[in-house]
């Protein structure tokens, strides 16, 4: 069916409006990080920079602990993502394929962990972590991030497993493949887009986590970007250049991750799997 010209025009304009709505703040933040301080706070905001400077990035990278925060965040988010994937893939497959008592009840209960607001468990967790010496360690953040990302990841991946045609698994079973081989050699390659989605979800959750990182970490050298960055921009006197340059750099890892993993989304791995 061919769309009429007014409908196409309306669709295009709506798309452009949404693009501007979402894109303009990013544009303003990124271009602002290259402006001179006077231009950043100018009475009439400039969408296209009239000045160019790298002073904010230089100050951020050489005059603050921002690079340390970045490394900590990359470590925490990377390790959290890896552990989440290693645990959630077999767990989701077990919930999808294996028959064991209480499977359905357990499947629903695990999501309860995701339903709790983090602030509710913050103080009890602090006490527990203090007793086992995990306060002020990146390991504490990894444990928290995995704990909160795992339930939703299992739910997501079980749906991906369910979307794989049953005939593929049956063919493998007839050839005598045990469940672990089916999972490793057949199912994981087929649900790669799902694993990529869960990986991105786990990475972004860990990358942006603030509440636990702000309380469980005590020393500056262990801070992650969200917490460390909120401190260096100041309270009574905000350094707007530092704020914009830090925000621009903070989105870089996520953008790079999307650029790398994004290809997995379009690969359409199940295409042609069943002939």
């Amino acid at each position, binding site marked *: 069916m061919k769309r009429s010209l007014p409908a196409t025009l309306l669709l295009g304009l709506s798309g452009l409006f949404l693009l501007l709505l979402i894109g303009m703040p990013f544009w303003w933040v990124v271009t602002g990080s290259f402006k001179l*301080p*006077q231009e950043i*706070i*100018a*009475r009439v905001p400039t969408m296209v920079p009239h000045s160019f400077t790298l002073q904010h990035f230089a*100050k951020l990278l050489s*005059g*603050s*602990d921002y690079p340390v925060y970045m490394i900590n965040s990359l470590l925490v988010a990377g390790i959290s993502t890896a552990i989440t994937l290693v645990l959630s893939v077999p767990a989701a497959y077990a919930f999808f394929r294996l028959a064991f008592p209480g499977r359905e009840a357990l499947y629903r209960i695990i999501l309860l962990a995701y339903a709790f607001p983090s602030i509710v468990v*913050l*103080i009890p967790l*602090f*006490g527990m972590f*203090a*007793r086992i010496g995990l*306060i*002020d360690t990146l390991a504490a953040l990894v444990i928290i991030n995995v704990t909160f990302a795992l339930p939703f990841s299992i739910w997501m991946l079980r749906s991906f497993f369910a979307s794989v045609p049953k005939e593929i698994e049956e063919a493998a079973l007839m050839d005598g493949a045990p469940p672990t081989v089916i999972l490793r050699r057949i199912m994981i390659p087929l649900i790669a887009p799902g694993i990529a989605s869960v990986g991105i979800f786990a990475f972004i959750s860990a990358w942006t986590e603030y509440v636990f990182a*702000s*309380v469980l970490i*005590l*020393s*500056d050298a262990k801070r992650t970007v969200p*917490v460390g960055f*909120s*401190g*260096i*921009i*100041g*309270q*009574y*006197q*905000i*350094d*707007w250049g530092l704020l914009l340059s830090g925000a621009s750099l903070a989105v870089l890892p996520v953008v790079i991750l999307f650029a790398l993993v994004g290809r997995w989304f379009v690969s359409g791995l199940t295409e042609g799997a069943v002939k």
Partner: protein
Amino acid sequence: MKKRILGLLAGASMLMPLSAFAAPVEITLWHMEQPPHRVARIQEIIDAFNTAHPDIVVKQEPQNWGEVYAKAPAALSAGAGPDMLFAIPDFTPILKNIGALTSVADFVAELDKKHDFVDSTVQSYSYDGGVWAVPLYNMAMSLWYRKSVLDGAGLKVPETWADWKAAAEKLSVDGTYGIGVPANKQLYTDQTIYSVMVNGGATEIYNEDGTLRFNNPQTVAALDYYAQLQKLSPPDSTSWTWGEAEACFVSKSCGMIMQFSVISSYDTQGGGDPADLGVAPIPHADGEKDHNTIAYANAVMLLSKDEAKRKASEEFIRYLLEPETYGKFLNMEPGLFMPVTADGAKAESFWGDPMATKYKAQIEQIIANSQNGRLFGFTSGRTFPSIAAISAQNVIAETLQSIVVGGKSAADAVAGGQDRMVEVSK
């Protein structure tokens, strides 16, 4: 006998290295001065102290005001808290109530004898028969303006509320706002409203018996007046914190603002002409005579129960308040942090800083304004534990919001504000 002597000598030789090289006392300082240049300045002072005191090692762990209210009690109860922790008056009752503090009255008296504290700074921490923190630096709200802007409009520096509103109206031309006052449910708004309240006779929010007296005609008049000023402010002022107000002034979008200091931003982004930067006391109500303001005496609490660590903490604070060191400490943010001691206010280390020299007139005015500084809930010895909740939940700012956003009358809003204070105090 010979064996015994040899044994003693052997024992002594084993003990000697232990006593000769006893491990230094390690103490941790938590503060909320997180911007990198402030952390660097505090580290310079710590390094100098550690070098001069080989038996003590101080280390700093900067924290964030946003989290420290929850983090400090949790850390202390888990045994992971600091030995020294910076504070503002409404933070101290929280730690006092969980038994984390012991009075430092004797130590403050010793320091007062030597350096002469500004009385109001000690009063903010004096209640329930003790002094709960050692004042370190002061911040007082002032009215900031550009002399050229007032002169250009044929205006004098406003003295009274009537002058102030007239000036704000006259300066509201050509897309600029005569004044920028916040109306966010946030601490900055609490501070600016109280700065107006204390200039309209609404200083006390408690009666002597601890009951609330927020709902009174002076408070209603102050909030009503503030709401009128807010109408002359930028429309986004309902979400402002300190930084947005400062940017509004420095970019010449706002003719006047109330702020602790704009010196640093004005110098780097606003032209930096000290002759054009004006600072004045907050105008008072037409029936009042004196100018008052809100002042935050920042202080340090001593938390360690260990005698050696406590003594080491005291030694560090003594060092910090010595005039040779104190100015360096205050100038971690030039023009923002004011001295709380008489000898600190004259210290060469304070006035010798290039920024302090350049903006000497403005800094002298801020110090003068701070002499009449008050803080809601910490006046006339009327300090009650509920002030921590009232302050933490920004009830004063919430009351203003119900006028400027909710459309209530000032009288209804203030009555509702008092009810809310009672509610959060339970």
